[in-house]
Each structure stands twice: as structure tokens, then as C-alpha cells.
């Protein structure tokens, strides 16, 4: 009887280890690169970026390396998207190997500050608040604010942000999206949400009337889910460029800054739009 029990437990263990092995197969490689880098940060061979891999079309997770996907470190999946495409160019320009680490939004800045990653390329805007704790390069994408609403709902035909009077609106926590909501008079500003998933669920279920987002995310959301529509404004939000732009986040006084700026300057506006259009077309949900 006891033997049976042991065999059972042993089998359970091996099953778990097998499952986890798929997930941790690359962690050895990661430790190697990390130990190599701990001494001299400037001398290492890799350029490690952090992103959520869940903010299409800027970054997403896919199961194979199609459309130029890059393997996520310590994980069996691949990352793709606009951020990844730009990151590849940056890494090539630096002459280093690109490593992508998947981290929750709130974990990105601490990861950068503690040298777990070299840069944040996660569709992050260089806001004043963020600039206090980390540095940013020049922008590598500039978009404008839009509103994602329910298709067929009362707000689908809105042209001005003031049409959203009395509507329940929110935006992502710690983003500029949330701040601009105050520009709508008489809006019922809802508590900020900590991720897009939660806002989309709330919108789909009718808890929200809309959420503020940026154009690429709006296109993706409305293309992927037939219940969503994107509202672009003729009379839109007033926002400074730093709030709609996306830049590479770097550790304060990073020596990478000038080099990356130089590389980014070499990518023309047309090329950027082209990469973005391709990313929107290639994102997994668009299939």
C-alpha cells in the first residue's frame, strides 16, 4: 500500500516537472548571460528588453517564431509586435543579441532599475512622472488618443470628446490615458484599471461606456472583437506629444541612450508606419 502511494506521488511530481520543464528550458541560458553581465554592464553581448507581451499591436505573445517573433527568455513562447520589430533594429545597431523578457507592467520599471533588463520597450510613453525615475530616448512611435466603445452603443457615432458627457469612462492606471479623461465635461470618471484586459471585460459587460486608448490599440481591439468600435475625434483630447509618444525606457544616465537615439533617428516616419501596419496585420487575433 505504501509503495503505491509513493509511486503515485512520484508520478505526480514527474508530471509537474515535465510540464514546468517546457517553461524553464531556457533559464539555464538566462543565468549564464546574467552571470556574465553582473560584473560589467557595458561589456555584455545581449540587449535585454522588458515588455508585457500582451499589449497588441505593440507587443504580444505567440506560439511560434512566425512573423519575426523572438523567443521570450525563460519561456517557451515568442514575442512579436511593433516594439519587438524596433527592438530588433536597435539590437542590430548596437551589435548585440536581442533578449526579450516578459514582465507585468508594474514590474517593468523596478526590473529596469535593478538591472534585470537593459531597456523597456513596451509601448511606454515618456511622461514627466516616469522621467523622474527613469530616462527615455527619443520617440519611436507617436499616436493619438481615441476611445474604444461598444459597437452599436450610444457613443459609437461621437465626434467630440464632449459627446461623452455622463458616460462611464476609464483608462489604464499610471498612464496618460487616464489623465486626459478630465478634459471631458461632466464625465463619470471611473477608477483606473490596472490592465487592458480588465477594461475590455468591463466594456463588454456594460460596466463601462468606453475607455481611452491609443490608435493602434483601438484598431486592434475593434478588429479582433466584433463588439468593440473605435471612436476617433475631430475635436479630441489635448495632449502633449510626450503623452502620446512611445519611447525606450532606460536606466538613469544609461550610456545606451545616445547610441539608441542614433539608431532610432535612422528609422523614418514612413518606415515606422509601415512596421506598425504590418504589426496590426500580423497580430495573432487578426488571423
Amino acid at each position, binding site marked *: 500500500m505504501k509503495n503505491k502511494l509513493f509511486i503515485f506521488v512520484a508520478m505526480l511530481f514527474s508530471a509537474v516537472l515535465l*510540464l514546468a520543464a517546457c*517553461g524553464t528550458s531556457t533559464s539555464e541560458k538566462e543565468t549564464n548571460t546574467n552571470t556574465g553581465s553582473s560584473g560589467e554592464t557595458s561589456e555584455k553581448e545581449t540587449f535585454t528588453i522588458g515588455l508585457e507581451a500582451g499589449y497588441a499591436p505593440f507587443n504580444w505573445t505567440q506560439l511560434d517564431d512566425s512573423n519575426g517573433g523572438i523567443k521570450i527568455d*525563460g519561456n517557451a513562447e515568442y514575442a512579436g509586435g511593433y516594439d519587438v520589430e524596433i527592438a530588433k533594429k536597435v539590437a542590430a545597431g548596437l551589435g548585440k543579441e536581442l533578449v526579450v523578457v516578459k514582465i507585468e507592467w508594474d*514590474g517593468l520599471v*523596478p526590473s529596469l532599475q535593478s*538591472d534585470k533588463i537593459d531597456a523597456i520597450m513596451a509601448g511606454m510613453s515618456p511622461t514627466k512622472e516616469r522621467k523622474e525615475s527613469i530616462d527615455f530616448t527619443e520617440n519611436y512611435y507617436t499616436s493619438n488618443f481615441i476611445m474604444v466603445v461598444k459597437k452599436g452603443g450610444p457613443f459609437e457615432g461621437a465626434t467630440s470628446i464632449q459627446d461623452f458627457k455622463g458616460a462611464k469612462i476609464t483608462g489604464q492606471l499610471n498612464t496618460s490615458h487616464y489623465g486626459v479623461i478630465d478634459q471631458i465635461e461632466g464625465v463619470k470618471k471611473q477608477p483606473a484599471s490596472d490592465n487592458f484586459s480588465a477594461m475590455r471585460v468591463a466594456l463588454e459587460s456594460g460596466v463601462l461606456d468606453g475607455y481611452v486608448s491609443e490608435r493602434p490599440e483601438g484598431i486592434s481591439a475593434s478588429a479582433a*472583437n466584433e463588439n468593440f468600435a473605435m471612436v476617433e475625434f475631430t475635436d479630441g483630447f489635448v495632449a502633449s506629444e510626450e503623452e502620446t509618444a512611445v519611447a525606450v525606457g532606460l536606466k538613469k544616465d544609461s550610456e545606451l541612450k545616445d547610441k539608441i537615439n542614433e539608431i532610432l533617428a535612422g528609422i523614418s516616419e514612413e518606415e515606422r508606419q509601415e512596421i506598425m501596419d504590418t504589426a496590426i496585420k500580423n497580430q495573432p487575433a487578426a488571423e
Partner: protein
Amino acid sequence: MSFEWIMSMIINNWPMFLRGAGMTLLISIIGTIFGAAIGLLAGIIRTIPVSERRIKRVFLKIVNIILSVYIEFFRGTPMIVQAMVIYFGSAMAFGIDMDRTFAAIFIVSINTGAYMAEIVRGGVISIEKGQFEAAQAVGMNHVQTMFHVVLPQVIRNILPATGNQFIINIKDTSVLNVIGVTELYFQTKTVAGISFKYFEPFFVACILYFVMTFTVTLILRYFERKLDGPENYSMIGQPAQVTTIATKGH
């Protein structure tokens, strides 16, 4: 929520869900085992009776204070905060670069250890004082009393609470994505983020979490029944089993 969409999503993304679930199980199983070991040790130390020798007494007092600080601190702060402080803090303050999975297991282990220490202490206190006295009367020291008399009973008694802790761990690993561990919740969020569908992936995650926790419950019930032995003792024709029960020392 459409059924076809759930099916197609499972077909397209099952490796992500499975790997996420595997990571969740790995962290919670190893974390609970190490946590239980820490808790058992801490619980035993905390119940050592006050010694008559002064040096031993002072030493014990210091150890107890350290253990109290550990237990109260890790019970009193959220795991997500501990993860942030330990993983990022160790890198920023001491330059220690922990492996993400190792850090996750470490955090779950010490967190569970703090809770388990209290569970074990409760288990030891629940044993009648007469048993300690009887053990002392036959010349056993604290360690002997613990291993031969008290712990066999404590382990049986704390099994349900350990199961609770295990289930809590399976669910609580979902906060560890801030340090980049791709467990089930993070994977589900990713699937939601790329498919722009929400109820469906989370519905699948819900079922996966329940399957994991319920399996743990069933396994622990099985263990409990094993430790309890057969309910009735009419063992005609099975003398071998009778002797094993007799030596188990119930």
C-alpha cells in the same frame, strides 16, 4: 461567451495554458513542501519549554524573537509586496541576480513557512500536556518527545490546514507575474491581450485552477485516510495489517 470560441481558443493556445498551469503547480508544490519544512522547524523551536540553564534560556529567547519577527513580518505583508521587495530589492541593494523561478519558489516557501509555523505551533499546543509529562517521565528529551510522541499526531492534525495553505498557494502564485514568472494567470491575461476576448480565456483558467485545487484536496483526503488507518478493526485473516497498525503508535 460562445462555446465554439472557447474550443478554438483552447486548440490554439493550449500549450500556453498548460505551461502556465505547470509553472503554477511547480511553484506551489515546491513552495508548500519547503514552507511546511520551515514551519515544522519553527513550530518545534517555538514550543521548546523554558530551560533552567541560563545560557540556554537566553539563546532560546533570542531565537524565538527572530522567529517571531519572521513570522509576523511575512504573515503581515502581502506576497506581491514581498515579491517586489525581495526580487528587485536584492538586485538593487546587494546586486544579487536571482533566477525568476527560483525567486518565486523562495518567496512562496518563506511566506508559507510563516503561516505553517503558526499552524504547527497550534498543533503542538493541542496535544494534551499529560503526554509531554508522560514522555518526560520515561526520560525523553524535547526532541525525542517531539519525534516519537507529539509530531506523529500533529502532522495528522495539521494536514487539513496544510491543504488549505497549498490551495491558497496555487491561487496566490498569480501575483508573482510582477517579477516575470509566467504562471497560469499571466498566461491567461496574455491570451486575453492578444485575442481581445476576455470571458473565454478566464473561464478556461477558472476551470484549470479548480481542477488543480480540487485534485490537491482529493490527494490530501487520501493521505488523511491513510494516516487514520482503517475505520473498523475487524481484520480477520489479515494479521499483517493489524501489526502495522499496532506499530504506528496511535
